[in-house]
């Protein structure tokens, strides 16, 4: 089975965000594989181990993203592809990213594509469904269970806490939700092996993509931090009095109950 995983390099969840001149400052920040993409990688490896085939991890970015691809290879993926857009594209939106990924994937023989359901930085969750639509294949988002038998696929999907039990078939794109699996940590032998695994670097020219055809449809004009919240009131006195004061404040001052 030919399995592809779409991954993104993101800020570590523990990072504080610093904004300067309307842009995020990323000097010295720790980067990780988007946590939802880790579920996708883990699931891809599990599916391959059960059904055979090959797992290829794909990302868009600059050379910095090689580190995250090597981590995915160390987890157990077989090959990695970096589509380096650094020289070609300044502004990218979800349309751009999906179009570039689809440009690569439509030249491949694809059975299953996995991705995270959302990236914790941009948070739009668009790229997976967009890529599937461009490739003309079905997709199921926010999955928590995946079983494949031949080309039949059984899925459980999280929908705001409810679970949908779904039947569909390959070829297919799925996006991973928390609860799908427990991503493994790369082992030391895994890390050693990863150094020798193929990591291919491509540019838009290699994919026959014209910059104008992937030009962003939207534009970020500013980035800012939320207004600093002033520390509120810590109530004092007997616990029972604090509780009555709290309820009275919520009712009369904040007017939320």
């Amino acid at each position, binding site marked *: 089975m030919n399995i592809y995983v779409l991954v993104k390099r993101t*800020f570590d*969840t*523990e990072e*504080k*965000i610093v904004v300067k001149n309307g842009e995020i400052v990323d000097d010295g920040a720790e980067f990780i594989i988007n946590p939802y993409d880790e579920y996708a990688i883990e699931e891809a490896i599990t599916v391959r181990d059960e059904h055979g085939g090959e797992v290829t991890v794909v990302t868009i970015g600059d050379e910095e993203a090689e580190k995250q691809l090597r981590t995915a290879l160390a987890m157990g993926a077989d090959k990695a592809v970096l589509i380096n857009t650094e020289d070609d594209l300044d502004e990218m939106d*979800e*349309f751009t990213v*999906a179009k570039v990924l689809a440009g690569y994937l439509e030249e491949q023989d694809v059975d299953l594509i996995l991705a995270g359901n*959302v990236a*914790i*930085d*941009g*948070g*739009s*969750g*668009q*790229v*997976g*469904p*967009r890529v599937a*639509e461009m490739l003309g294949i*079905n*997709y*199921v*988002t*926010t999955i928590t269970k995946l079983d494949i038998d031949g080309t039949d696929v059984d899925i459980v999907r999280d*929908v*705001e*806490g*409810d*679970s*949908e*039990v*779904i*039947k*569909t078939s390959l070829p297919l794109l799925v996006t991973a939700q*928390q609860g799908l699996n427990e991503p493994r940590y790369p082992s030391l032998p895994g890390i050693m092996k990863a150094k020798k695994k193929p990591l291919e670097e491509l540019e838009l020219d290699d994919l026959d993509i014209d910059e104008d055809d992937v030009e962003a*449809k*939207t*534009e*970020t*004009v500013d*980035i*800012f931090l*939320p207004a600093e*919240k002033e*520390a*509120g*009131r*810590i109530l004092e006195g007997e*616990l029972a009095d*604090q*509780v*009555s004061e*709290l*309820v009275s*404040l919520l009712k009369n001052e*904040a007017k*939320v*109950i």
Partner: protein
Amino acid sequence: MSKKVLVLGEAREGVLRNVSFEAIAAAKQISAGGEIVGVLLGDSVEALGTEMIQYGADRVVTVEHENLKQYTSDGYSQGFMAICEQENPEAIVIGHTALGKDFAPKIASKLEAGLISDVTEIEGEDEDAKFIRPIYSGKAFEKVQHKEGVLFITIRPNNIATLEKDAGRSGDVSKVDVDVKDLRTIISEVIRKATDGVDMSEAKVVVAGGRGVRSAEGFKPLQELADLLGGAIGASRGACDADYCDYSLQIGQTGKVITPDLYIGVGISGAIQHMAGMSNSKVIVAINKDPEAEIFKVADYGIVGDLFEVMPLLIEEVKNLKVNA
């Protein structure tokens, strides 16, 4: 230039979700006097058209088919695209719900359009409209502008106020015939496990528990308080990792991002990744026995104390309030 805007009405168990009316209000701002057309898809949805009009839609177009009884991206896109072809809209607004997140990118892709997701605020109108949306789960915000093609946004529930309901408003509810077929996704069963009725992302009140709650049993008083206040319960990653509750309840950067009117954090210390998911709530209450807990820095009201002592008192007090109301 005025715009014709399509707004998807999302129904759950036969009732339109509030976010659909918020979407009409957003559409009004974008439309700059243009027409707002409600869209309803389902097996029997025509009757819901009137309510969309009362909340500000000018008219409503429906597609009814048995294959639209449950949402699937294939089914809904066939219905929605048929209406798009008939109406030729300049803009589209959909709620950023589970359905909206799954559906909107497919339509955007079909239309070769941009899509500004999860909008919490709209600044200005017409060509100058700027859309504000959280990034890094609310640790920062970005302001986005539309460049070309159809203007397409999804809006986060609970952030944009609805227009006032006008029971006297009337408008045309028409139908488009579409043979909805070839669905590639078959939903064989839906297992409900969310808290009764109220979904966390749309709830006005969320009572969230952390590791301090100590057990699944410990969540019961939180649920009781949430029920009394007509809200939902949530949790920190710590509580989910410890198996006190289901991951679907997790609030934070790797969980749900919520903006209720009232958030009550119980036994939650306030790790940065949790705070990203709730710090934009309108009013924050923290109950924790550690006075140094980070969550007190963002809380409007804090009680330093043992939650097992505070919760029974709080439940009693809220009960009294409801009795006297």
